[in-house]
């Protein structure tokens, strides 16, 4: 037996070390850093289904956390196997993956590519996001329609001849009604600039009816213009979308100067395209515009106040803005986290007193919930927590 001693020692050491490493890792994952949401006031039920995705940093430790009302905080660790997936955050589509497994295969995962109503789910994309389509060649749109009741799906594609060569063509919005599908897409031609297309497809005939060029901006030596689209990421049935065209003039030194900026509102139901005027004091903040249902919000943060300006699309008027009191002792001049969903306003701020979390009613501005994101156990007292996204979890 003596001559086997080395082999036995090596095997023993390997098994001991590796198993203790992974046991320790599993324990550490559970106990290392954990946050919970502690209710200060309001209805506890508000946070029942919420999950906050946050990045935690302390010293040289960087972690991605998922915080829920339960004490245990999950951590997300990028593993080699998860790289087999698309890197995009897929928790939004969990329900789709569970219920419509085959339909979801190979679908480009971006909210703008999906449409859902009571009876069907529609997905549209340009193959490879229109990568490197050459002028004169066919530009194709792949369309998949799933009947939710029967679970049958139908796929077809429509094509048009590309007028220019594109670097990319990204679908921003899909809307379906009256046997037609309207696809809003931004194309980026290879020689610069951007185009905003609205493709109308006849579902029954499976053909492309119109290719409307809503906006086309080019860049030349002096000026540059950009098109930006704003869509409602919360719903898959979007009646409206907003787009903005900015024109810049190149400066000799420094950043380009903004010459003009114009907002447009498109109504999918009646195909109306109208210009939107924003009050002048809101113009600098227009980039943070949020579209929810039939309302447009422009949040403006000041020292201890959030002014949520609202435009009612159907009434075509700017309504009285909501004012929400914020904490005054904000840390590090960090911009508060703001997300509008489920007819509620979710805000989180890092203050000297801790990480505060608020929920307000979107209609009335009334406070529905107030709480604090507290560290349960952690090694360092000195850390920064940055909330990135709020999602709903289905149990």
């Amino acid at each position: 037996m003596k001559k086997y001693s080395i082999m036995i020692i090596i095997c023993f050491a390997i098994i001991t070390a590796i198993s203790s490493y992974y046991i320790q890792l599993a324990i550490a994952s559970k106990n290392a850093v954990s946050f919970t949401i502690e209710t200060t006031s309001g209805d506890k039920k508000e946070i029942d289904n919420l999950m906050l995705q946050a990045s935690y940093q302390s010293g040289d430790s960087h972690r991605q956390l998922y915080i829920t009302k339960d004490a245990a905080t999950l951590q997300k660790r990028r593993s080699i196997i998860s790289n087999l997936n698309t890197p995009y955050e897929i928790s939004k589509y969990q329900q789709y993956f569970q219920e419509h497994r085959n339909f979801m295969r190979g679908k480009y995962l971006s909210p703008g590519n999906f449409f859902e109503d009571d009876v069907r789910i529609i997905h549209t994309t340009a193959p490879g996001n229109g990568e490197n389509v050459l002028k004169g060649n066919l530009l194709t749109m792949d369309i998949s329609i799933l009947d939710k009741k029967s679970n049958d799906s139908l796929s077809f594609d429509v094509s048009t001849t590309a007028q220019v060569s594109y670097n990319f063509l990204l679908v921003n919005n899909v809307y379906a009604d009256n046997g037609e599908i309207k696809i809003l897409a931004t194309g980026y031609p290879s020689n610069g600039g951007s185009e905003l297309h609205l493709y109308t497809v006849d579902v029954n005939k499976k053909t492309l009816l119109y290719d409307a060029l809503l906006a086309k901006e080019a860049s030349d030596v002096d000026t540059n213009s950009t098109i930006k689209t704003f869509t409602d990421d919360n719903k898959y049935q979007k009646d409206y979308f907003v787009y903005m065209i900015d024109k810049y003039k190149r400066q000799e030194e420094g950043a380009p100067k903004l010459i003009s900026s114009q907002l447009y509102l498109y109504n999918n139901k009646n195909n109306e395209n109208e210009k939107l005027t924003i009050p002048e004091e809101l113009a600098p903040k227009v980039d943070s515009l949020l579209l929810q249902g039939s309302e447009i919000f422009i949040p403006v943060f000041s020292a201890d106040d959030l002014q949520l300006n609202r435009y009612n699309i159907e009434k075509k008027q700017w309504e009285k803005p909501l004012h929400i009191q914020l904490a005054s002792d904000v840390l590090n001049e960090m911009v508060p986290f703001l997300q509008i969903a489920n007819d509620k306003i979710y805000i989180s701020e890092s203050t000297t007193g801790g990480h505060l979390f608020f929920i307000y009613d979107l209609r009335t501005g009334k406070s529905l919930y107030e709480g604090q994101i507290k560290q349960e156990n952690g090694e360092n007292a000195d850390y920064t927590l940055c909330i990135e996204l709020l999602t709903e979890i289905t149990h």
Partner: protein
Amino acid sequence: MKSYLKLVNFEINRFFKLYLIIMALTVVSQIMGTIIVSKGNMNYINQVIYENQLSVSQYIEENRPFSFQRVVYSEWFTMPIFFCMALLMIYVFFIWYREWFGKNTFIYRLLMLPAERITIYFSKLTAIMLFVLGLITLQIILVPIETFIFNRIVPAEFRTSYPLIDFYSVEIWRWLYPNTIIEFILMYGIGLIVVAIIFTAILLERSYGLKGIFSAVAYSVLSFGILVAPVILSSIYTSYFYPSEILLMELVTSIIVLGSAFWIANQLLKYKIRV
């Protein structure tokens, strides 16, 4: 089975001297590196404090404290890892070729042992895996020791903790120590299959000479291609296959590739090998 264990033991004892040397080099380099990096940083900090007449808390306010991560990123830490990997890669070939070349022709004895010849193949494969995992183990043992030394040199005010769970941010660590034990088995399983492919390729060369080199290369490329086919498939048809499906496909291709590596090696060793 008994012959297998005896041969594994034999292979381990043969290489053990050299193995101890590279382990010692790793230990020395990493411990020295810990001391040098820690002391170096402290000397710099002390110099800054002295020159600017700062108090400790003043320094901390201006500059962030540092952690053991500095040691992990240094060459003292990473070079031995790469060096050991390179050496083991070479030994994957050398473990076979040493039986034919040099002053010994030990291959005669191996092939004339009263045991299935594939046992030679399995024992060498096992030995390589044990050597790799042994080094992995060494690193696991070293980290707490080095952290201890680091904590002794750097006073508490100037450092933050860097627990094992955060080592994940270092690229090389992510590959050597995957997230979960399941991934660990998968990763090193793939590694084992790669070594098996190389072994069979070597046997092809040893059995057929010059023609053998071509067939060895062709065989390796084909095997490796089949092995990674599911992964390549998933990157071409992005998100068409779900991870569980890709894993299943990978399991199937792994079994096919490993099985054929074993089968071909067995045929070669029994009927085609030349001394």
